[in-house]
């Protein structure tokens, strides 16, 4: 976007004349126009515009899944399926389920059972708050006691971490931010974040599966809250650790 186009966007109604003047100046006094250009922030239009996730978020327990309820619901579905199967109603190519709940929850070879996956989902989502920082280049989700989830703004997928204990990729699925983690022995975790258009409510779906099993999904809802303003400006240094200075009203 050119300097003039940016001005039009910033002042759509009353400043066309100003834009015209700026155009004249740009033509007649290139050196002055250059100085003015340099003062304006340059927008990188190659970076896609994403939903605004930034802010402090607290869990809305009323609207979030309770892992035990969700587990019970999933169990009921299984029991119903088993009953249907027993009565001879076809269930397609689903896994065979024995009668009378016998072996109902026995995992297939090398798969973790649903109860353990559900408990793990709860363990991973034990935090009730999170803070999200977002700019034009990066989004960073911080939860206490957890490694931050960091992703760029490109559609991806991008590999964000890889090590002996697992690998992580992230990317954007339309307006949703997705992190996928592959842990040893086929444990597979997906976090999917979405936010309402007014950026006041956030939804995080965690799916956990083991060696290709049907995933256990846990939906968590968050509401934005106004955290007290940080009194300090902090910067990480290497020799002095985190160096903070008190915020003044000006900054």
């Amino acid at each position, binding site marked *: 976007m050119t300097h003039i186009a940016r001005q039009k966007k910033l002042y759509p109604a009353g400043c066309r004349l100003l834009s015209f003047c700026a155009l004249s100046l740009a033509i007649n006094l290139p050196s002055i126009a250059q100085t003015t250009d340099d003062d304006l922030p340059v927008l990188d239009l190659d970076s896609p515009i994403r939903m605004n996730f930034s802010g402090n978020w607290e869990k809305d327990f009323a609207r979030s899944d309770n892992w035990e309820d969700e587990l019970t619901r999933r169990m009921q579905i299984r029991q119903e399926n088993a009953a249907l199967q027993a009565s001879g109603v076809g269930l397609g190519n689903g896994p065979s389920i024995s009668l009378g709940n016998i072996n109902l929850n026995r*995992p297939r070879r*090398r*798969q*973790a*059972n649903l*109860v*353990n*996956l559900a*408990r*793990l989902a709860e*363990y*991973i989502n034990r935090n009730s708050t999170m803070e999200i920082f977002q700019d034009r280049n990066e989004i960073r989700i911080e939860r206490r006691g*957890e*490694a*931050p989830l*960091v992703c*760029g703004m490109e*559609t*991806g*997928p*991008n*590999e*964000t*971490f890889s*090590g*002996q*204990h*697992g*690998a*992580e*990729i992230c*990317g954007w*699925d*339309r307006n949703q931010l*997705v992190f*996928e*983690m*592959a*842990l*040893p*022995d*086929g*444990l*597979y*975790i997906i976090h999917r974040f979405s936010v309402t258009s007014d950026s006041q409510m956030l939804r995080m779906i965690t799916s956990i599966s*083991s*060696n*290709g099993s049907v995933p256990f999904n846990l939906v968590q809802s968050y509401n934005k809250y106004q955290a007290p303003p940080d009194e300090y400006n902090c*910067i*990480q*240094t*290497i*020799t*002095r650790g985190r160096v903070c200075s008190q915020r003044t009203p000006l900054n």
Partner: protein
Amino acid sequence: MALINIFRYGILIASAIGLAACAQTPQPEPAPPPIPTVGEVDLDTAESDPQDYLLLDIGVEVFEIEISEQEALEFGEWIFTEIRESEAHYLPYILRNTLLASNQWGAARVLPTHDPSMDLTIQGTVLSSDGQRLTMWVEALDSTGRVWLQKDYSDESLTDDYPVSTRYTPGSPFDASKFTEPFQDIYDQINNDLVQVRQTLSIEDLIDIKRVSQLVYASDLSPESFAHNLDKDENGRMSILTLPAEDDPQMRRVEEMRLRHHLFIDTVDQYYESLYEEMQAPYVVWRKYSYDQIEEETNSADNAYDFSNYGRSRGFLTLTQRYDRYRWSKIFEMEYRDLSVGFNNEIAPAILQLNEQVHGLSGTMEEQYIQWRRILRQLFALEAEIPN
């Protein structure tokens, strides 16, 4: 949706093949054999002051950096690229100090770009650099275009290279005098190699190098007056066709200009010294963290899961342990990344200062240097027009 499916399948395949199956160390692609390390090297120092013809002036240009494809693809690589760019200003100063410490050479200066007044110019490219290993390619050419060095150098650090004092606290600040550069052997080896090449040259060759650099500088100032004194063959080697008279007034002016020029590049060199001093403490600490991180990764690889022996339990405790191991390894990695950002934060003012220190000129240090040379050329042209 299609994209996410693609990467879902991608990760599933990756999981199936590698992590999911057994979490064994992935088979690395066959890499070129590592450049052998220089080992332990003693600096070849001159006991007494060498003869004048041996005292060549050396310009060490700010190094280039090479980012490997693998590095460029890594998420957050820009943090480490910034560190590598800062290193390119820092490492040449260690070489410059080593050359001076050897007492084998004339002036040794760090320069932002090629300088025609130097007898010997050293260029380097940092191929890889972390707390554990430094690999660089070094080329040294004299003013006649003779190649002195074209060689890869590599060195590895040891735990002892990062004594407890490098993990200093505000109560025990960094003491540069007690610290030895972990990769000092590389710089010592470069100096020793240069001394070895110099020993193969005759006195005439060395005097010739000095004369050529004088004429190259003169020709750079005023090609129309001095270009005819030099000849360049098809291999780029310079030789003297004619020497100006000893009392040539133009040559005298060239020498005056050269003196001013050297004063300027001495000042530039001092700016690099300031940067070096500012950067040394955070750089050493960052390298220590980098060393620790690599050690941790190596240990982690050595102690990787062996699922043939390790219980294949899928109980809740095993799952949480598996997740926690992943979580902590990622936290460790992210902290290292944050510290690297901290390093960049800490030295940013010093880099900025380096680029702002020459008053009346603008742009980066390199641009200012080019401007300075242009001014000298104009000054010389003006003075040449004034009758003696």
